């Protein structure tokens, strides 16, 4: 990489975190793709000094990084905030042992749910696990604070939660680079059974964990990166993360206590700060995490969620509205006949063919997390639930147990590996009749096309053993397994029908790659064309929900975006759609 210490570069928050890992001398990094965290590991993979890998899911990523940390080296694991729900089992127990080498867990939160299924304030996880948490406000801090996180981790032998948000991860700013600190093994490896076999020694370890938290509590009171920016007047603000940047825009004169470590809070520092001002605003996105703790100390001259929202992302406009009743400039596009640009499955997306067949089958379709969630929207409307990673299969089995007939689960290849396999084992074990459709598009689509165990390549693009989904499903004990081509509607319809009719568990695996998968972008494509003379304007081709079939009375196929998948031609009863040049 053309990056040298001392250089000042424009970097996105996630790239800066990756650079911070490099400078901190991190030895190993693992993770699972999830917006807005994905780029952290992708960029780390470009530093040859760091061993980095995609894991099958976030818990596996956590466990691997934890093992590396116990062996005495600096380790990192990175995930979106819901990933921490998956990793939580280990995350909650490891603090009882404490780490050897520095160990940092990155949680990328998504206030405003730009690309997420729920809104969740992961700061509670730090408090729940009794470990310290650091939050950067911009790319420079993202890099610098990651290094601080490792110092903190090793000082107290504790995992550290590094919490970022979409706006910090995905904003660019100027970053001054530093040197890599080759820490090597911060502490040498010794087998430490009384700390590591947690269930047997848990009682004494809990007491040690409480004592450790008390020591960290004391340490943060004088932590230099929890800083006070003295302003004018008698208004104070306590804030952290992206909210700090909005505060500086809207209350440039106020005195600000900017927290770097947001758990545990520096109690005395905050009490002293609050005593100095008539009013102190607690400016924090999502929940009243900081405010509740300060209120519990009996402080009353503070204002937080009484005026600021608990949901959605903050912005300078949001602060101005809450503080001064200054309304943002009205979005005038609704005075105009504006049309939205809703997200849709791409032209040539193989999921479309599977959904058309599922729709025809009339089945209740439980869904999962991926691009294919878009199959719930009209005109496809062929997916009826979507909650969390891997949930579709258990839900389908549950509907079946609840007495609903004809249920199918849809789940992507990456998601099946992440969290679907145990559920399918359960269907077989408990005698279920469930149909599972694995939408195998040979990539992790929604997060930007990452490799996974069934793509045959690693994070660095090196060849890897390719997980065979058909064999895995057979080994689980599913006897009815069929691979089907989603671009062949006859074949796909038949495969779905046979699977639903089958007595016992059944799996259909689609076999067309995402249009953005490796090798697919380069594949030459011939678009389809509509023969105006044969076309009766019945609209069947438009009802397959392909953005390449343009709306309007007379359908037209956009020859730039059409990939030649042929689904519109198969939908046409009048033979009016043909391959260009034929």
């Amino acid at each position, binding site marked *: 990489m053309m990056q040298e210490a001392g250089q000042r570069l424009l970097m996105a928050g996630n790239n800066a975190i990756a650079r911070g890992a490099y400078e901190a001398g991190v030895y190993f990094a693992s993770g699972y793709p999830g917006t807005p965290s994905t780029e952290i590991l992708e960029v780390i993979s470009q530093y040859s000094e760091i061993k980095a890998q995609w894991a099958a899911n976030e818990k596996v990523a956590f466990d691997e990084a934890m093992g590396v940390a116990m062996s005495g080296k600096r380790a990192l694991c990175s995930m979106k905030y819901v990933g921490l729900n998956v990793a939580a089992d280990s995350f909650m127990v490891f603090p009882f042992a404490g780490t050897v080498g520095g160990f940092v867990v990155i949680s990328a939160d998504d206030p405003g749910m730009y690309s997420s299924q729920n809104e969740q304030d992961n700061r509670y996880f730090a408090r729940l696990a009794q470990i310290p948490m650091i939050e950067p406000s911009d790319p420079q801090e993202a890099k610098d604070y990651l290094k601080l996180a490792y110092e903190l981790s090793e000082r107290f032998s504790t995992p550290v939660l590094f919490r970022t948000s979409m706006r910090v991860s995905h904003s660019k*700013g100027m970053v001054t680079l530093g040197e890599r600190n080759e820490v090597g093994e911060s502490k040498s490896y010794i087998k430490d059974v009384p700390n590591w076999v947690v269930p047997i020694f848990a009682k004494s370890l809990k007491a040690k964990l409480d004592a450790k938290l008390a020591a960290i509590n004391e340490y943060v009171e004088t932590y230099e990166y929890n800083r006070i920016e003295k302003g004018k007047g008698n208004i104070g603000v306590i804030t952290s993360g992206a909210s700090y*940047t909005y505060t500086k825009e809207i209350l440039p004169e106020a005195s600000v206590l900017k927290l770097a470590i947001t758990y545990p809070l520096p109690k005395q520092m905050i009490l002293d700060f609050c005593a100095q001002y008539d009013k102190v605003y607690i400016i924090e996105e999502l929940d009243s995490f900081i405010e509740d703790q300060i209120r519990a100390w009996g402080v009353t001259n503070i204002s937080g969620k009484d005026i600021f929202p608990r949901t959605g992302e903050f912005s*300078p406009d949001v602060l101005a509205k809450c503080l001064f009743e200054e309304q943002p400039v009205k979005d005038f596009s609704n*005075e105009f006949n504006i049309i939205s640009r809703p*997200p849709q499955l*791409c032209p040539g997306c193989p999921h479309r063919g599977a959904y058309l067949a599922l729709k025809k089958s009339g089945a209740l379709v439980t869904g999962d997390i991926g691009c294919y969630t878009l199959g719930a929207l009209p005109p496809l409307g062929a997916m009826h639930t979507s909650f969390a990673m891997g949930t579709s299969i258990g839900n389908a089995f549950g509907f079946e147990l609840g007495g609903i007939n004809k249920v199918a689960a849809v789940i992507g290849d990456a998601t099946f590996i992440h969290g679907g396999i145990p559920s399918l084992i359960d269907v077989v074990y408990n005698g279920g009749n469930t149909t599972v459709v694995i939408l195998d598009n040979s990539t992790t689509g929604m997060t930007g096309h990452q490799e996974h165990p069934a793509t045959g390549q690693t994070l660095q693009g090196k060849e890897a053993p390719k997980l065979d989904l058909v064999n895995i499903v057979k080994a689980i004990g599913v006897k009815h397994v069929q691979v089907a081509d989603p671009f062949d509607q006859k074949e796909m319809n038949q495969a779905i029908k046979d699977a639903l009719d089958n007595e016992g568990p059944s799996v259909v695996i689609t076999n067309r790659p995402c249009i953005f998968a490796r090798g697919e972008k380069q594949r030459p494509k011939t678009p389809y064309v509509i023969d105006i003379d044969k076309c009766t304007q019945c609209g069947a081709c438009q009802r397959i929900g392909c*953005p390449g079939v343009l709306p309007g009375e007379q359908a037209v196929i956009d020859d730039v975006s059409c990939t030649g998948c042929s689904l519109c031609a198969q939908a046409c009863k009048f033979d009016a759609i043909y391959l260009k040049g034929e």
Partner: protein
Amino acid sequence: MANVTNVLLCGVGGQGVLLASEVLALVAAEEKAQVKQTEVHGVAQRGGSVVSHLRFGDQVYSPTVRTGTGDILVAFERLEAVRYGHYLKSGGLMLINDIEVMPGQIGEYQPYPTGIMEFVQNKGFQIQEIPATSQAKALGNPKVSSLIILGALSAHLDLSQQAWERVIRKRIPPKLVDINLQAFKVGVEMAQARAQAAVVRD
């Protein structure tokens, strides 16, 4: 805040809005103390609405631009100028690429709205329409329209032409540097011709 320039670039996914905003941010990074850039777009898919916020100057905190404070709004497509127009300050400059991209639709069919230019004109902005897409086609590569747009934008920003050229050479794949520099120049000339015409009119 004083000395901070706020620019918004908006368009439809696939038009090159994100590349253009990266180039602009890199140019600003060469010449200004602080630059922040952020964008909002939906899931990884083509055809969605995209907006990028860029702020540069002496001291920049928030990466997002407040509504009603944008100095320039660059719309790569007409309808998107309406969608994000409220970010522009009163009397601010709207640079609009004169093309219309029909949204993909999932409900009942709605035709592409008419009267966009009259509508934004009546909002009291300075409006400049540029034929970037048709000019790019004339150059032989419709994808360089984003560089034509940047060329036209550069005439309104206090960033040196040398910095623009350096960044384009660094950021664009070598094979495409020449045509992109050519496209950028077309945009600059378009803006110059417009400025001269305005002087003559006055």
